[in-house]
């Protein structure tokens, strides 16, 4: 008996040793380059894309985006919408747990959403819940957080009441601002709830380390409902502010992916990395805004003349090395059911556009004796500068005297937000959720980001009508009509380029699906 036991132990020992040495127990570690460190890991205090990349792994909202960025049930297993489109009832996933083993309940969502809109939280993205009853008044301090239109029907049922039917509401629920946070943990630890070792989350991964400017380590959450299908054990988010270093680290195998690359070296990078370079349309627009409430830029014909003379193909190809796409509409292509409305010269050749621009300028009395003077303001970036310089050169033959003013980002946006004095200024918009409203709201009268100070009742009415449209089709049509007026006709913004994503993705990484949101949750990836 004794010898039998020894032999058995010996065999088990040998098998374990063999398995270990062959890597059967080896952890799958994914070193994920992320262009910057998060400002915060508190979902209610974040706003950026690089924060979203991390929080998407740590937390799970009612709805999630899958590998193709399609909206799927997340913490809510299913939902129903009332006949008037104003009440959403979410059935939470049965047996779903926080990483500390406690159940995820409707009360967690009630608490979290009230926290998001509470002025004391000062959440930048509180407006993600703007469609919910009383949300805006609570954030403005006019009502109490417990007056928010949300309630716990029972532990597994969460009900939300909206001001009006909001077709993109489910899409908004994929945003990190709407993720739940653990009340017990916040009550106990206060602001420290977010620290590694303290953070209780409900996503596929749990935070274990955060060394600022070095790495954020998250390990697989074995309490996650779908943990059995999560193939990567550890994900290290590595901030890669220096794109050249990131590329070298990728080449050396220190990074398995990075969400950016030095676009100025694109040709060499493509030659070196081949299919590992992923480039495609991204839901964002690079634009210029005229100050439309200031002469002469209040003249829409003049705005169009300048816009027509800008050779977007040149900008995309020469300045941005084809990592951007020429744009003639504000809403980029790629949103299902929406027809973008481009300016009418989108289809003309650049030569024809320039001829027409010259004609308009002459009509308006501009010429060698009375040159049009225009100042372009942009925030510091080599590419923004190159873009502005190219535009300066393109407008010179038309007799437009362009001067350039480069300021740092804070100064630039400080001026724009205060509606300071300028002629034309650079800005950009990356979609928070996949809906045209997210772009077009920028041209509504009085919106904070309406740097052009554009105001048009017809446009505002169309946007309002779209918000209460009876069907999704009608809504998309109204939004499209609004874009035709505000953007294509009036140039509330001058679309120049659509953004594109440009990722470096190792061939060892499997399951990376290219999509317009550039969303790639780690739980759907695998590494060879």
């Amino acid at each position, binding site marked *: 008996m004794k010898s039998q036991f020894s032999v058995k132990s010996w065999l088990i020992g040998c098998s374990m040793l063999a398995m270990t040495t062959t890597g059967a127990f080896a952890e799958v570690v994914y070193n994920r380059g992320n262009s910057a*460190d*998060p*400002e*915060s*890991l*508190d979902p209610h*205090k974040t*706003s950026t894309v690089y924060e979203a990349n991390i929080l998407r792994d740590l937390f799970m909202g009612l709805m999630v985006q899958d590998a193709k960025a399609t909206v799927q049930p997340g913490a809510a297993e299913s939902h129903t919408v009332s006949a008037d489109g104003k009440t959403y009832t979410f059935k939470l996933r049965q047996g779903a747990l926080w990483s500390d083993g406690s159940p995820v309940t409707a009360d967690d969502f009630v608490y979290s959403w009230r926290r998001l809109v509470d*002025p*004391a*939280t*000062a*959440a*930048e993205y*509180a*407006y993600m819940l703007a469609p919910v009853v009383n949300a*805006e008044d609570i*954030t*403005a*301090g006019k009502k109490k957080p417990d007056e928010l239109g949300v309630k716990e029907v029972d532990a597994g049922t969460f009900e939300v009441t909206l001001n009006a039917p909001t077709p993109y509401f489910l899409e908004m629920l994929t945003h990190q601002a709407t993720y739940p946070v653990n009340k017990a943990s916040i009550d106990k630890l206060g*602001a420290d709830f*977010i*620290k590694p070792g303290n953070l209780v989350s409900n996503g596929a991964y749990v935070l274990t380390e*955060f*060394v*600022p*400017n*070095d*790495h954020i380590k998250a390990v697989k959450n074995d309490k996650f409902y779908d943990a059995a299908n999560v193939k990567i054990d550890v994900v290290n988010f*590595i*901030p*890669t*502010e*220096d794109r*050249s*270093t990131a590329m*070298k*680290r990728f*080449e*050396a195998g*220190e990074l398995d992916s990075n969400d950016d690359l030095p676009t100025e070296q694109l040709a060499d990078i493509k030659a070196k990395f081949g299919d590992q370079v992923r480039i495609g349309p991204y839901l964002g627009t690079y634009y210029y805004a005229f100050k439309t409430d200031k002469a002469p830029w209040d003249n829409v014909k003049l705005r169009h003349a300048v816009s027509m003379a800008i050779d977007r193909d040149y900008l995309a190809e020469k300045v941005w090395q084809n990592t951007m796409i020429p744009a003639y509409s504000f809403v980029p292509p790629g949103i299902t059911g929406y027809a973008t409305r481009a300016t009418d010269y989108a289809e003309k050749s650049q030569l024809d556009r320039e001829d027409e621009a010259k004609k308009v300028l002459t009509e308006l009395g501009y010429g060698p004796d009375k040159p049009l003077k225009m100042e372009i303001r942009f*925030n510091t970036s080599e590419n923004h500068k190159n873009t502005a310089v190219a535009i300066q050169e393109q407008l010179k033959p038309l007799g437009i005297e362009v001067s350039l003013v480069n*300021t*740092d*980002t*804070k*100064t*630039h*946006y*400080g*001026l*724009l*937000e205060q509606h300071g004095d300028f002629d034309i200024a650079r*800005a*950009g*918009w*990356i979609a928070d959720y996949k809906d045209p409203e997210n772009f077009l709201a920028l041209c509504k009268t009085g919106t*904070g*980001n309406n*740097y052009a100070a554009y105001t048009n009742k017809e446009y505002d009415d169309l946007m309002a009508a779209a918000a209460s449209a009876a069907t999704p089709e009608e809504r998309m049509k109204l939004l499209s009509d609004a874009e035709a007026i505000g953007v294509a006709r009036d140039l509330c913004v001058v679309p120049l380029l659509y953004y594109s994503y440009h990722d470096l993705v190792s061939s060892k990484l499997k399951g990376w699906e290219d999509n317009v949101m550039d969303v790639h949750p780690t739980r759907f990836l695998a590494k060879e």
Partner: protein
Amino acid sequence: MLRYVLRRFLTAIPTLFVIVTISFFLMRVAPGGPFNQEKGLNPVIKANLERVFHLDQPLWKQYLLYLNNLVHGDFGPSYNLPDFTVAELFAAGLPISIQLGGTALVLALLLGGILGITAALYQNKPADYAVIATATAGSTIPTFVIAPLFQLFFALTLKWFPVGGWGDGALINKVGPVLTLMLPQLAIVARLMRGSMIESLRSHHIRTARALGLSDYSVVIKHALRGALLPIISYAGPAAAALLTGSIIVETIFAIPGVGRYFVEAALNRDYTLVMGTVVVIAMFTIVFNLIVDILYAVVDPRVRYD
């Protein structure tokens, strides 16, 4: 001497106060604020943020609040990294910058010193020319060229070192940043040492020492080196303060989580508290190292007395 040190520390307090006051108000003169960004904030939300960080208060109140917190050792939360206080950011990053900068400085002083002495002893001979050439090259090639070249050659081609990252402080991760930080300093120290050593070797007391028949070792190391060290000490003080508080270029290129990057990033982000924390840390390092320099003067040169 002790009284002198104590007096210097006490005079540092009003100096720090003046630096903090000027920086505080200068920072606020800069246009834009911590919450101006590409995706502009709704005015209501911006107002909420400003209230949370007391930016809605009159400037003099904010100043008094900051001073009060500072006296109690509280540098406040970072506006742009609200999960961390400024003190936590420095606690995490400063030891790393000190390790790299300190190692680079010690190596630069040792190697630069040896090279400088060698060049001085072999003045106008091939060894001297070699040191001068190396020193000139070292001080003219900027770190943003040295660092990527190191990465390309030693990390990507030879694969001896990682391209970047701190690697939990592994020695192999420190080689590139330390060498990059060290080379320009080494060049400067070598040139300074060569010059001051040549001068020292020509002085009367060295001539006397030689006339007395002292050995070369004794003449150079015991007598000439003392006098030659003074310019090196003068240089090393401010250099130490600069090196130990990190380098944005080296830390960014080698992806090192030090504090060097905060100096520029905090200012660009209008992260007022982090800027102020940075100013206080640099000022303290500068004050302390200037004091050390003065004390070392007295140690090296018997003619210098502070009592």
